[in-house]
């Protein structure tokens, strides 16, 4: 049965996806897509459409709160938040626009939102792992593994059989004999491992905005791949004219200056793969982010390296080009020349923050 609300929801979703009423799309409340809190939980904004009205801006605004704190202590960030009691609140609770999710849930949502295919790991499952699975029942065991339902059923059965059960006062007390426990056994599972190598150009022409885009995008890629593989290893490379292997934190923070030699990063990536991830056992992903500026004479070397050493061993080699006020974007053109020959070379241009979704879809949409 169709309820009116379903039609309204349908309409809303069409608007959000930009299928109809293009003009409204800009009111989709944007927020920080990524806001890691703790280790495993992120908050994501729930999209809604704002109707423009005459409203107060931030400047000169304020409100009243309750709690501890000295004058000057921050209580909330600016931006679009409305301060204090400004919400009219005509009937139901407050409007929290952020949901906290675990990474697994997030990956599910990402998958269904972008219609990402699940990844089929390549090759035979060469690596095996042993895992404990609780798949049977025993009569003895530690209390922590007691199977409550079964224990209760046994006790109930015993009571009914002995005539001790009174429906008016249905008290069931299990005895030692009634207790049942979960029990584990070892199962051998094929284990799919994946390695991701991130490369980023940190030459002078990459600004903080672009790095933020890279950061967000690689977070989502991580999240997705992690949901697809049992073990995910990550390596990070930053480069300008020379390349360095760095840890995750440094990867996002470094700011170098100077020229760009992409081949240096490729050399480093090849070295890491040879050292840590024999391609026979690993599903290897390379993601390269750059503004597309490279020293002209380096391009030939890059193409060689890419075609001979990297692309053949990778599940995917993804190149994402962020738009920079300084970069020329030449490198993408070079890659486009060879792209038709390699199914697993994927190119994407990320114009701005909104481009991230499309780009992720391009990268991961092949299910490799």
């Amino acid at each position: 049965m169709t309820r009116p609300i379903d039609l309204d929801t349908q309409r809303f979703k069409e608007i959000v996806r930009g299928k109809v009423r293009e003009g409204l799309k800009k009111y989709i409340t944007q927020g920080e897509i990524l806001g890691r809190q703790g280790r495993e939980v992120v908050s994501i904004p729930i999209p809604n459409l704002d109707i423009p009205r005459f409203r107060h801006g931030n400047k000169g605004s304020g409100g009243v709160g309750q709690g501890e704190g000295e004058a000057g202590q921050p209580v909330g960030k600016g931006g679009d938040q409305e301060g204090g009691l400004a919400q009219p609140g005509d009937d139901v609770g407050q409007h929290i626009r952020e949901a906290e999710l675990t990474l697994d849930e997030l990956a599910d949502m990402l998958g269904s939102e972008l219609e990402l295919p699940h990844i089929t790991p390549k090759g035979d499952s060469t690596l095996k792992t042993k895992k404990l699975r609780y798949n049977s029942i025993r009569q003895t065991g530690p209390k922590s593994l007691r199977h409550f339902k079964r224990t209760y059923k046994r006790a109930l059965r015993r009571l009914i059989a002995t005539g001790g059960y009174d429906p008016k006062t249905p008290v069931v007390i299990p005895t030692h004999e009634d207790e049942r426990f979960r029990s584990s056994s070892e199962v051998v599972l094929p284990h799919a491992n994946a390695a991701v190598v991130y490369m980023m150009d940190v030459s002078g022409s990459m600004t903080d905005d672009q790095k933020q885009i890279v950061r967000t995008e690689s977070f989502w890629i991580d999240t997705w791949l992690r949901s697809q593989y049992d073990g995910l290893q990550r390596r990070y490379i930053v480069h300008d004219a020379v390349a360095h292997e760095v840890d995750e934190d440094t990867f996002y923070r470094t700011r170098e200056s100077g020229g760009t030699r992409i081949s240096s990063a490729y050399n480093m990536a090849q070295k890491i793969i040879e050292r840590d991830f024999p391609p026979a056992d690993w599903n290897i992903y390379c993601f390269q982010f750059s503004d597309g500026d490279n020293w002209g004479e380096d391009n030939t070397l890059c193409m060689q390296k890419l075609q001979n050493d990297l692309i053949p061993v990778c599940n995917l080699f993804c190149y994402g080009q962020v738009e920079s006020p300084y970069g020329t974007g030449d490198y993408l053109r070079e890659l486009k020349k060879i792209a038709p020959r390699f199914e697993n070379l994927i190119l994407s241009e990320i114009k701005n923050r909104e481009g991230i979704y499309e780009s992720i879809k391009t990268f991961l949409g092949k299910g490799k």
Partner: protein
Amino acid sequence: MATSISTHRQLPAELREVQLRTEEYARSYGLDFYETIFEVLDLEELCMFAAYGGFPTRYPHWRFGAEYDELMKTHMYGLQRIYEMVINNDPCYAYLLNTNMMIDQKLVIAHVYGHCDFFKNNAFFSHTNRKMLNQMANHGARVSRYIDRVGYEQVEQFIDACLSLEDLIDPHSVHIKRAPDISAMPHAALLRDDDFEYLATEGKFPSKGYMEQFINPPDVLEREAKERKDREVERVKKRSFPEQPQRDILQFLLQHAPLRDWQHDVLSMIRDEAYYFAPQGQTKIMNEGWASYWHTFLMTRHGLTDAEVIDYADHHSGTVAMTPQRLNPYKVGIELFRNIEERWNNGQFGADYENCPDMKEKARWKRDTGLGREKIFEVRRVHNDITFIDEFLTPEFCAQHKMFSFAYNPSADQYEIASREFDQVKAQLLNSLTNHGRPFIYVVDGNFRNRGELYLQHQFQGVELKQDYARDTLINLQKLWARPVHIETMIDDKPSVISYDGHTHQTKTK
């Protein structure tokens, strides 16, 4: 359509019993409400009702879908829960969530009776339509008819434009008469024609013949007549209207904008609904405070069994929890009501108390007046949030509840605690409650520059308009007015005018 979403089901016997018992207790303490009908809904239904603002038969519009989507998601991710909804209507309708625990249902039922009493008795609700459920269904049916006639997209776009202006009403106008009533001439048949001669010459007071020249001195009359004439000439020359700045912009548009018949009707519906919902915004703190006061009162005295105490306490404390960014209306409301009750019970009011110079004595003050209960019933009848806070917020209360004001710091792009001083906290609180913290906007001229352009004025009170929103609102306004529209406001401390002529925006410093 209406039948497919109707949820007229019998309340389970167990709940029915709780309802009857709670109702009886509520009445015995003097609560007074319309008949209240409870219905139990599942999560989807409740979210649907909530998305529709409580009225499942409203006109179709995507924003209800958006609301529904958000409610369902926040529910599923465990962010918030709606336990109940109450509709200000006669009879009152209240909806309960079917997955609530029994103790929650009890609490919620008690809470609902608090709301129902408030709806019926608070002065600010006195002009709301108590048959709104029917009215909303009526609106829904009319909009559907227009959709059939002119097409979905067109109606939707027009509603979008109207919603953009929805809050440009004058919430107090329902209580006062801004313009003289034209038909106010009682007992006309009983009077002779010449009794009304004074009405013919405006400005003349009625008088017995021999007092005439003292009560209506001819020179004064002459002067007044001249002034009136000058004003009239001036007005005709300028050809501007309205005479006084008008706050009910929706009404102004209904009267003067070149709308087609269906557009006129849709706009008038949206205006009606805005007026209906306005008092709920004006009394949020009081309404929730009052309902919370009564649910605690009824539950702790009559509702709870021993086994339920912990769950009850847990739920209640969740309701009244404080957060730094946002004043919890439940918390402030209930505490303030209790505070008032205590003060009036102990005689902590009146000149003697106010003027007592000794703080210690003031803190210990106890006169056996026992007027507390009576006082809070009076308060719930005559106050709204602003007068409530203005009248009853005390420095002691402020300090006890650790209230602070916060302000926006542009350099850090964040809100920071500004002060804990009573005067400042109170001023800020009143400020953010005034007009729900929204800007005051008036129509100043409907024939600006003698070219039929619409000129609005933002009454600047220290906070500037959000400019991108203002510009987009002007676009929507222009759709209705069809001629260029302007709004005068402050930008960077300078009086400026933002204009939109149907194609481009212009911002000029005045």
